[in-house]
C-alpha cells in the first residue's frame, strides 16, 4: 500500500492498485509503441508521460530539432575474452528485439542512430570479470543504441558508465537467453549540463535472472525508462535504483515491469536523496500483471529523503492486476524530510553536523546497496556515495 510520511511541500506520493480488465499503462500513453519517431506527436508537456519533464531543457530531443554532431559521445567497450563486441548497421536483426520505443525521444533515438553496438556473451559462458562500457560525453549531441545479449545459461556483469557532457538519446536492449544471469549497473555520473534520455528494455528468458542497478548522480536532465518483459516462465527481475538529486537537477526514472508470462518474479526498489533549490526527482513505478501471468510475485518500493527545502519529489507507484491467481503483489512509496531529530540525536553524541548528515544519508542508501549482492559493485557504490556526500554535504 502506498504510505506517505511528512511529505515536503509540493511533493506528491500518490499510488494506486487497480484491478482492471484492460490495462491503462498502455492506453494512457499518447501513442502506441513504435520504432518510428513520426508516429509520436511532438509533446507539449501535459501528456501523462511528459507532465513531470521540463521539455524546454531537453535541448530539442523531443521535437526533432536536436541533430547529431560529430563530437557527441565516445563509447568504449572493454570485454573479457569470449565476449563478442560488434558495431553494426541499422538493419541488424538483433536490434529492437527487447522492446519497442514507448515515447517520442526513445523513438527519436531509434530513428536517428547510425551504428549500434552489440555485445554478445555466448551460451554457457560464465564471465568472472565485468564487461565495461564507457559512454563519455564530448559536449555534442548523439543518438545511440546498445544491445547486450546473453546466450542460454551465460552469466555476466555489465557496468555502463556515463560521464562528461552530452545531449544523448540512447536505448539499451538486454536479451537474456534461457537460464542466463545478467547484472547491469548503469551509472549516470554526468557533468552538470548533460541531458540523457533513454529506454532500457530487458527481455528475460525462461528461468533467467535480470538484475538492474541504476545509479543517477549527475546531469541537468536524466530521464530513464527501465522496462522488463518476460520471454518464458520462471524469469526473475530485480530493479534497484539510487539517485542523488541536487540543486536544479531533474532526475526521472520511469519503470515498467510487464508480467506477461506465468510464474515470474519482480522486485523493484529505488531510493533517492534530494537537496537544493529545484532539485526534482520523479519516480514512476508501473507493474502490470496480465491475465495470463498466473503465479506472479512482485513488489515495488520507492523511498525519498528530502534533505533541504525547495526540492520536489513525484513518486507514483501503479500496480495493475488482471488475474487474481498470483503469489504476491505490493507496492510502497514514501517521501520524508531529513529528520532533525535524527540529526539532534547524533550531534548530542558529539558527532559534528556534517558528519551526522552524511551518516544518515549513507545509512539510507546502505539499506539498498546491501541488497545488490555483488560485493565489488556494492563497494564501488559506497565509494561513489561517499564522494558525492563529501562534495555536497
Amino acid at each position, binding site marked *: 500500500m502506498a504510505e506517505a510520511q511528512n511529505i515536503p511541500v509540493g511533493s506528491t506520493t500518490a499510488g494506486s492498485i487497480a484491478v482492471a480488465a484492460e490495462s491503462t499503462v498502455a492506453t494512457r500513453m499518447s501513442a502506441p509503441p513504435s520504432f518510428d519517431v513520426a508516429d509520436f506527436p511532438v509533446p507539449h508537456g501535459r501528456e501523462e508521460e511528459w507532465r513531470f519533464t521540463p521539455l524546454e531543457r531537453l535541448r530539442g530531443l523531443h521535437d526533432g530539432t536536436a541533430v547529431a554532431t560529430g563530437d557527441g559521445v565516445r563509447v568504449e567497450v572493454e570485454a573479457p575474452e569470449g565476449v563478442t563486441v560488434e558495431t553494426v548497421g541499422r538493419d541488424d536483426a538483433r536490434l529492437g528485439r527487447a522492446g519497442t520505443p514507448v515515447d517520442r525521444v526513445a523513438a527519436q533515438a531509434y530513428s536517428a542512430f547510425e551504428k549500434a553496438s552489440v555485445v554478445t556473451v555466448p551460451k554457457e559462458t560464465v564471465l568472472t570479470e565485468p564487461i565495461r562500457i564507457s559512454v563519455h560525453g564530448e559536449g555534442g549531441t548523439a543518438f545511440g543504441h546498445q544491445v547486450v545479449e546473453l546466450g542460454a545459461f551465460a552469466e555476466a556483469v555489465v557496468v555502463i558508465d556515463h560521464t562528461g557532457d552530452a545531449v544523448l538519446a540512447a536505448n539499451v536492449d538486454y536479451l537474456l537467453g534461457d537460464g542466463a544471469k545478467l547484472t547491469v549497473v548503469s551509472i549516470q555520473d554526468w557533468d552538470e549540463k548533460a541531458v540523457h534520455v533513454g529506454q532500457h528494455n530487458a527481455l528475460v528468458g525462461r528461468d533467467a535472472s535480470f538484475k538492474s542497478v541504476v545509479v543517477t548522480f549527475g546531469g541537468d536532465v536524466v530521464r530513464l525508462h527501465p522496462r522488463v518483459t518476460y520471454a518464458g516462465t520462471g524469469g526473475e527481475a530485480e530493479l534497484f535504483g539510487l539517485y542523488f538529486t541536487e540543486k536544479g537537477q531533474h532526475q526521472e526514472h520511469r519503470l515498467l515491469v510487464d508480467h506477461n508470462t506465468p510464474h515470474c518474479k519482480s522486485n523493484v526498489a529505488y531510493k533517492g536523496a534530494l537537496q537544493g533549490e529545484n532539485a526534482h526527482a520523479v519516480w514512476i513505478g508501473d507493474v502490470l500483471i496480465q491475465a495470463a501471468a498466473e503465479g506472479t510475485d512482485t513488489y515495488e518500493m520507492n523511498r525519498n529523503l528530502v534533505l533541504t527545502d525547495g526540492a520536489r519529489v513525484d513518486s507514483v507507484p501503479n500496480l495493475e492486476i488482471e488475474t487474481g491467481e498470483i503469489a504476491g503483489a505490493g507496492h510502497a512509496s514514501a517521501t520524508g524530510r531529513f529528520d532533525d531529530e*535524527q540529526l539532534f540525536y547524533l*550531534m*548530542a553524541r*558529539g558527532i559534528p*553536523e556534517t*558528519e551526522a548528515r552524511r551518516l544518515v544519508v549513507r*545509512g539510507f542508501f546502505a*539499506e539498498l546497496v546491501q541488497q545488490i549482492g555483488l560485493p565489488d559493485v556494492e563497494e564501488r557504490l559506497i565509494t561513489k556515495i561517499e564522494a558525492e556526500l563529501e562534495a555536497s554535504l
Partner: protein
Amino acid sequence: MATLEIRDLHVSVEADNATKEILKGVDLTVKQGETHAIMGPNGSGKSTLAYSLAGHPKYTITGGTVTLDGEDVLEMSVDERARAGVFLAMQYPVEIPGVSVSNFLRTSATAVRGEAPKLRTWVKEVKEAMERLNMDPAFAERNVNEGFSGGEKKRHEILQLELLRPKIAILDETDSGLDVDALRIVSEGVNRVRESGEVGTLLITHYTRILRYIKPDFVHVFSAGRIVESGGPELADKLENEGYESYTKGGVSA
C-alpha cells in the same frame, strides 16, 4: 572538579504561532560526583530543562546562563556540548536506519574522545560494557534504535553513557516504561558510572521508584518551570507519600 551551573534559566517554545515560556528561572549547580534528582509532575518542564541543556533547536533560551567549568554552554552547538562533556540519555531515542550500533558508537566515541579508539581495545571495551548491561553481542550489528524494545533503547542509552564517560549526565526519564528487571540493569549501569566519581548526574524522573536503585544526594521538586523545593533524599520520601499535590495546587498550573 567539573561543575555545571544553571542560573536563572528561562526557556520558551513556539507553539501554535505563540511563544510559551516553559522554564521560568531555573537555578541549579551540579558538581562532579554528585547526583541530583529532579522530580515533578508531567508538564512541569523537566524534559525541557534536559533538552535545553543539550541544545535541542526547538527550545529558545530567553534568559539566564549555563556554564560548565566557567565555559558558556549556551554558546555551544549540540555536538560541542557533547564533546565538552554533557550527555543526555533520551526518553525517546530515535531510529537511524542503515546505521549500525557499532558504527554509531565508534563514530561517537571518536568525536567525544578526539581520536579514534584503538580497534582492539575498543572492541573489548564495547563487548564488556554490553555484557554488563545484559545485551546480546548481535545487538551491535542492528541499526540504531530500529525495532528496539523500550528496555533495549534505554540500555543502549546507558551503554553510550558508559562508553562516552561524560562530566555531566542528564538522564531524562530513563526509568519510564521499564519493568523491574530492566530498571535494575539500567540503574546498575548508571551506578557504575557514578561510582567512578567523575560524573555529575541529573536524574529527571516522575516516579520515586528509580531512587530505590540510584540514591540521590539532592532532590529538587520541579513545578511550573522552576525548582520549588530542594532537599536531601528525605524529600523523595515525602513525595512518595504525599505526591505532587502540595506543589501544584494553588493556581500554578503545569
